[in-house]
């Protein structure tokens, strides 16, 4: 069975510097898959490469298959027809993704006019219905508003209405709730989950927040230095991470959110160093300059190995334990 989206050896380079290297995964039909990584890990570039929206200067290689068609080698015309229709994306900051000069209702309607060929009246009516479906209190009022007149949460709901307007096979959401308050984040996450279910869309959720992905996704990919370093069921990855990088992230996130009773100052487990700038990752294993388990063998690039729970590491954590 092929998935809703098949990513095969996807790479992106910027003037000869690899930003994303050899990324392969499949997004199964109806699945919610998380992509975790810190800033500079290449997760947003991966999303843009999938959507064919890479900024100037960046070039993608490899294949991204959507229903048998390769998006990487596809011409812009065909891509424009698929984008917003069969595959849609929600960005972190809807204010920059929405047209500031166009009323919100028209922007939602535009998607339907372009992809579904609806007339002005019909599209406007459907747009109103969509704004109601994303649980906006006053759909008609929101439809008449300009993006800057809405709150961050309202704007993200509008983006979601546009994204699901054509019931896409694949919904890519890049940090959709990072700029939102925790209460609004909670509502928007529930909404994303409900909409993806109702539309039968597969969800690729990109986030730096392990807890958000734990709540939303059945399976998770961990990215570092433009490479996938671990992949598996969310429960397994969070309870028994194999890659030292994942293990560090999980330990930190778990410790920060645990009760403060037993803590000592400065006792939080923290990965040493920080994510290096582009082009400064080490050769071989991209994490070896920050890794406490690294040795000579890490000078060679480890491949992602394993069937259900896979890791790209020469010295995985908890080897043999599970």
């Amino acid at each position, binding site marked *: 069975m092929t998935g809703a989206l098949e990513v095969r050896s996807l790479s992106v380079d910027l003037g000869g510097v690899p930003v994303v290297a050899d990324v392969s995964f499949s997004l199964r039909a109806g699945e919610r898959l998380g992509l975790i990584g*810190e800033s500079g890990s290449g997760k947003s570039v991966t999303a843009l490469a999938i959507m064919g929206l890479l900024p100037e200067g960046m070039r993608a290689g490899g294949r991204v298959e959507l229903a048998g068609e390769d998006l990487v080698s596809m011409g812009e015309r065909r891509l424009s027809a698929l984008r917003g229709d069969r595959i849609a994306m929600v960005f972190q900051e809807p204010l920059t993704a929405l047209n500031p000069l166009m009323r919100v209702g028209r922007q939602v309607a535009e998607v339907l006019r372009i992809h579904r060929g609806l007339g002005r009246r019909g599209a406007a009516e459907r747009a109103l219905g969509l704004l109601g479906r994303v649980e906006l209190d006053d759909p008609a009022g929101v439809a008449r508003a300009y993006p800057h007149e809405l709150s961050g949460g309202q704007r993200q709901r509008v983006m979601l209405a546009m994204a699901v307007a054509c019931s896409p096979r694949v919904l890519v959401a890049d940090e959709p709730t990072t700029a939102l*308050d925790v209460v609004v984040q909670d509502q928007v996450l529930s909404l994303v989950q409900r909409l993806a279910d109702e539309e039968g869309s597969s969800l690729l959720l990109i986030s730096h927040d392990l807890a958000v992905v734990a709540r939303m996704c059945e399976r998770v990919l961990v990215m570092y230095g433009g490479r996938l370093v671990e992949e598996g069921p969310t429960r397994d990855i969070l309870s028994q991470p194999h890659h030292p990088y994942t293990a560090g992230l999980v330990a930190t996130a778990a410790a920060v959110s645990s009760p*403060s009773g037993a803590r000592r*100052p*400065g*006792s939080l487990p*923290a990965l040493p160093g*920080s*994510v290096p700038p582009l082009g400064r990752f080490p050769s071989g294993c991209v994490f070896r300059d920050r890794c406490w388990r690294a040795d000579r063998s890490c000078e060679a690039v480890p491949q992602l190995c394993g069937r259900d729970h896979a890791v790209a590491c020469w010295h995985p954590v908890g080897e043999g334990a599970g």
Partner: protein
Amino acid sequence: MSAPILEARGLAKAYRDRRSRSRPGSRWALRGVDLEVRAGETLGVVGQSGAGKSTLARLLLALEEPTAGEVLFRGQAVSGRRSPGLPELRRRVQIVLQDPMGSLDPRMRVGDIVAEPLRALRIPGDHRARVHEMLEAVGLAPGAARRYPHQFSGGQRQRIAIARALAPRPDVLVADEAVSGLDVSVQAQVLNLLSGLIADLGLTTVLISHDLAVIRYLCRRVLVLYQGQVVEAGSTEELYTEPRHPYTRRLLAAVPEMPGRP
């Protein structure tokens, strides 16, 4: 129990509402906030955006004047330009803000940035030595003094902001979203640094954040701010395990949880 070092009584702040032309008047950012921080204590202030957190920070530092109520530092009023307690407050209470790129002058070398409060407050002594001492305390190499803010990562810039705040040996540190917006691994490093410095220097700390996990990690006592008012206050553990106010419950319920290890 010792007297409070920093105190707010009935603190309120109204801003002219420019958003609504039909309803001219005031928007209350803060209404009747009382708080007390005792020496060595770590107080958390948690709330969503628009709750009045940053207004509270500016009032506590006397960067703005309250519409009503007052701020006291060691029992002396500091609200108002000629308040007797103001000079002492300027030296003894320092702040670290969220975005160090916005609060560090890009044209100044890091050494000058860290020395600036020493000069501005006319603190006697060897400023160069103090700068090096502070850079070391926050885990930066002495060479950092000659470089510019843009040459550092986000986490390093936050270390610079902490060094600057602590250079004049304040008694109280106000941290307004000081670890927000940082990557998980970097956030953990900065939290470790902050908690270490708070303990070593015996700093009194007011930590303002929307992040309930960060507050829980660093603070023993916490206030929940909602629409400019304190809706709940208490020991951190009590509040997190038995929240009483419906808003606090809603806030805690909204936090996605990390599943526990088996």
